[in-house]
Structure formats: C-alpha cells, structure tokens
C-alpha cells in the first residue's frame, strides 16, 4: 500500500530541476536588464559634465575643413547625405557656438595625425592624460530634437489615434470596424523601418530634403496603433451603465462620449499616450531615413535635426572615444526618459487598479 512508485525519485528530480530552471530563465531576463541599466547609468553618468545638458556637438577633430558642408543649408544631397553631420571626421560649426575651438596639440589624437579641437568653455579633465579622452560638448541638440520630433509625431498621432479608438470602442459592431482593427494591427506589427521607408519615399524624395517633420510623420505611424489600442481598451473598460445613464437623460452619443465616457477613461488614455511618446522617442530606424541627424541645435522643422537615438547610434559608430562616451550619455538620457515614463505609467495604473477593486 505504501510503496513509492519505482520511478518516483527520478520524477521528483525532474520536477525540481525544471522548476529550478524556470527560475534560472527568469534570471536570464533580469540579468541583461540589470546589466544594461547599470552600464547605461554608470557610463552614461560619466558623460555628464556641465556642458552635457547645455551644449550641442563639439567635434573631436577635423581633417579636411574644406569638405564641411554649409551648416545653414543642409539641403538633400544624394551624393553625400552625411556631409556635415559629424559622421566622418568632418565637422561643422555654426555661429551659435559660445566659443571658438582651439587646437590642442597635446591631445590623444595628436600622435595619429588628428588635430583635436576642444571648446575652451568645457571643463575637460587633465588633457595630459592620454587615456582620458573625455567627452566634449553635450547632447542638448539631441534632447531638443527628440522632444520636437517625438512631440510633433505625437501631435499628429493623437487625433487619429484617439478618434480611431473611440470609433472602435463606441461603434464596435460595425463591419468597417473590423477593417480598421485589421489596419491598426498591420501598423503595430510592421517593423519600424517600414515607416521610415514609406516617409522617405513619400516625403523626403519629393521635397529633396531630410526634415524633422518627415521624422515626426514616420514616428506618428508608429504611435497611432499604440494610442488607438489603449484608447479602445480604456473606453471598453468604462461600464456600459455609464453610457446608458447618459443616454437615459437624453444625451446624444457624442455628448456622452465627451462628457462621460472619455473623462472616465482619461487616465488610461494618458498612460497610452505617454507610452507611445516613450516608444517614439526611442525609435531610431525611421529617423535614419527621414531626419538624418544634425550636430547643431536646430528647431527648424523643415531641416535635418538631431535626436537622442540618432546621436546614440552615430556616436557609437564613431571612432572617437570621446564621442563613444557621449553615446552612453545620450543613451542615458533616453533611458531616463523611457524608464520615467514606464514607471509613471506603472504607478498610475496600479493606483487605478487598486481603486477599482
């Protein structure tokens, strides 16, 4: 009666082993998360200097100043689209730089034929230390650019996203709603580079120029499905009894939607808007094809503009350690933005879930 089945010890072992390995697997997800955050925070913090948030690009060196494109006319040039954006060793200046760079013969690159220029305003660490090619300048242009490009993208995505969400939730029975839902799924499922390609063909080629507004458009394509989804989901959570109560008083649909349903769902919608902003702010691929990037503080919407993800990408590819450090810095700011948004959303939704119960 009391016999233990003969294979039981083995089964028990498998049970423990597999349960243990699910813990390990979870660890495998948490470790890179912690590692990435830790690296971005420590190396990113190293890039934070007094200039970091207040200055734009300061080039580490120049080889052929003659090649520099005119910063005031960053028109589309298919032959050399990267001219003047610091991708190469080529750099540019605009008049807004606070101080003229001075050549420093003692710096890291002197020995290999580069002439490094440093901004006299920067509080550089000891220049005699060959290994500390500290960052110069800052990413202010990237911060401004990201806020403009993603903000404008959000402005474009909001009306479409919210009204599409309203349509899907309030007229959910209609056959057209299925088509709309299908298209929202297409948008959310397609790779972000596709949005870049479409805007490149649709806007950049005809206008013959990369521009911030083109970047905003491509981000809007990526934001629309997020805003639509959350709006729809949040509106569906509003109990039908509220709609019926409003209608019972004789209010028309649009009035009850704006005065009763939408306000009830507002916190959730704001959450979705924040998440879509965070997502848009972090997108890189479509911006490569649409805004190109820039090294100056620019607010001109019809011209190339800097943005944090683009800076992160370009500075990572850069051969200069100083710019690599700035890449971590830009990544740090980007990460802060994304984490803050996500944590805020988390707090907001937790409070609401708690109140609902």
């Amino acid at each position, binding site marked *: 009666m*009391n016999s*233990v*089945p003969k294979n*039981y010890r083995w089964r028990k072992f498998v049970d423990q082993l597999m349960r243990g390995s699910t813990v390990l697997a979870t660890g495998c997800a948490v470790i890179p998360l912690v590692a990435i955050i830790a690296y971005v925070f420590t190396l990113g913090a190293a890039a934070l200097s007094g200039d970091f948030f207040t200055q734009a690009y300061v080039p580490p060196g120049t080889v052929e100043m003659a090649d520099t494109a005119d910063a005031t006319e960053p028109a589309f040039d298919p032959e050399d689209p990267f001219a003047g954006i610091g991708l190469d060793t080529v750099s540019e200046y605009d008049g807004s730089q606070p101080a003229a760079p001075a050549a420093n013969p003692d710096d890291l690159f002197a020995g290999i034929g580069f002439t490094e220029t440093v901004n006299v305003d920067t509080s550089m660490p000891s220049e005699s230390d060959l290994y500390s090619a500290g960052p110069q300048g800052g990413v202010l242009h990237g911060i401004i650019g990201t806020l403009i490009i993603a903000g404008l993208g959000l402005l474009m995505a909001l009306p479409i996203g919210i009204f599409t969400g309203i349509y899907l939730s309030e007229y959910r029975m209609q056959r057209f709603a299925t088509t709309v839902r299908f298209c929202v799924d297409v948008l959310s499922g397609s790779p972000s580079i596709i949005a870049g390609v479409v805007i490149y063909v649709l806007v950049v080629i005809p206008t013959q120029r990369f521009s911030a507004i083109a970047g905003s458009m491509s981000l809007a394509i990526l934001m629309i499905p997020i805003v639509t989804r959350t709006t729809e989901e949040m509106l569906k959570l509003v109990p039908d009894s509220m709609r019926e109560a409003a209608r019972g008083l004789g209010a028309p649909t649009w009035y009850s939607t704006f005065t009763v349903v939408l306000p009830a769902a507002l916190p959730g919608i704001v959450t979705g808007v924040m998440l879509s902003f965070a997502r848009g702010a972090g997108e890189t691929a479509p911006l490569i094809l649409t805004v190109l990037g820039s090294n100056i503080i620019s607010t001109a919407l019809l011209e190339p503009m800097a943005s944090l993800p683009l800076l992160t990408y370009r500075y990572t590819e850069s051969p200069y350690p100083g710019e690599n450090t700035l890449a971590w810095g830009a990544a740090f700011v980007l990460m802060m933005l994304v984490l803050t948004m996500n944590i805020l959303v988390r707090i907001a939704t937790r409070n609401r879930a708690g109140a609902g119960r």
Partner: protein
Amino acid sequence: MTAMTVSQLAPFYGARQAVKAVDMTIDAQKITAIIGPSGCGKSTVLRCLNRMHETIIGARATGTVHLGDQDIYAPDTDPTLIRRRVGMVFQQPVAFRTRNVYENVAVGLRLQGMNAKAELDVAVEGALRSAVLWDEVKDVLDKPGTALSGGQQQRLAIARTIAIKPDVILLDEPCSALDPIATANIEELLLELKQQYTIVIVTHSMQQAARISDETAVFMVDTTSGQAIGELVEKSQTLHVFTNPQDPRTESYISGRVG
C-alpha cells in the same frame, strides 16, 4: 473497516478558517456522501482529503488525516504520492484537449512509468470497462477526449482516476453539470465501483446522497460569530441521517427549511 480517519482537520483560506475542526472516519468500500448548503465547506473538506486544497494560493489546513496508518499531513509526506493514492473527480468534467480518449485514461499510468503498449492497452481497457464507457468509446479511442459528451467525459475522468488504482476516490459534485440520464449512469457506476474502492462524494442533491451512499456527513454554515464558517453537524449511516436525524439543524435542512 476504516479507510481514512480525519481528526481536528481545519482548512483555512489565508487567515480565515473555512470549517470548524472536523473529526470523522471514512469506511472502506463504502460510499460516504457529504451534503450541506452552499458555503458550508463540504468541497473544501473533500479537497483536504488528498491535499488538493493547498494548491489554491493562500490555502492551508491543520490537523491530521490518516490514510491507513499514514498521516497525509505529516511533514515528510509528499502530496504527490497522496494524490496518486487518493484520486479525485471534479464538478466540471475534465478531458485533456490535446490527448485522445486513450491517452486521457493512460496519462496517470504513463506517469507511473508504464509505457509498454500491451500493458497499457489492458489497463486502459480495464479502466474504461470499469467506468462503463468502453462500449461507447472503443471505436473512437483516437478522437480527442473533448469530443465526448459531458456525461462521457465525466466517466472518462473516472476511468482516468481508477486506471491508476487508487485506494480512495473523491468526487466533488460529479453530476452537477450533467443531465439526468448521465447522472443516473454515474450513480450506477459508483455503486459498481464501491465493490473495490472507497468512495467519498460531495453532492448538493440530498436525493442523490440518499440513493447511493452508505454513510452521510452533514455540514452546515454557522454564522453566529458574525462570519460564516462551516461545521460538521452530523455523520452516521445514511438511513439514520435521513429518517432519524440527531441534530435539529440536520432535520431542518433535509426537510427543506434551510439551504
């Protein structure tokens, strides 16, 4: 002969005690029915008999339950082994969707390490015959278990349970999701099975308890403390419970005044 002895068994959900400490015995090769109004904790007590109760998050139980001479709540007891010896059939008929009829019965045997085709064939057919299902499913053994009707699925679940030859079979309102004909089939089956197995059945139907059980335990809800808590008010031979209840609460319950 006594199959199980329950002493001072008190199930909890978190900090809340669901049932006042229960003492009772379960006779071997008899059908013991547990009846009572909703919320009296009858299913909870049943689920304590094979340590299924504790699989709910936050649920636990104190006290002892002896299966033969083994205390299933002793610290060194492995609940998995207990559940292998004390089988359970649930309110909702459960068929494993991704397994065919044959594998639905064989699953417990395979866990025990039985993999020889010939051996399995014999055991599965035997279990299906015992569950009075063989004639209905012998031609559809390779169809998914979920293709069967509700009543058939419940007998399939019983076949799965008896295939591993447990000592005790617990049934938690096995007929509440079934139509009267399927219910009659199951009841007939249980009367067959008690020749070999000890059976404990929770039922909300007093008629069912009266029809098939040898012993009946009556649980009631006590709300005098302000919080609902179940308690065992009476347990004896079914005939006694229904014709000559010792507890006034039992009397009012079976005469339909409570619950």
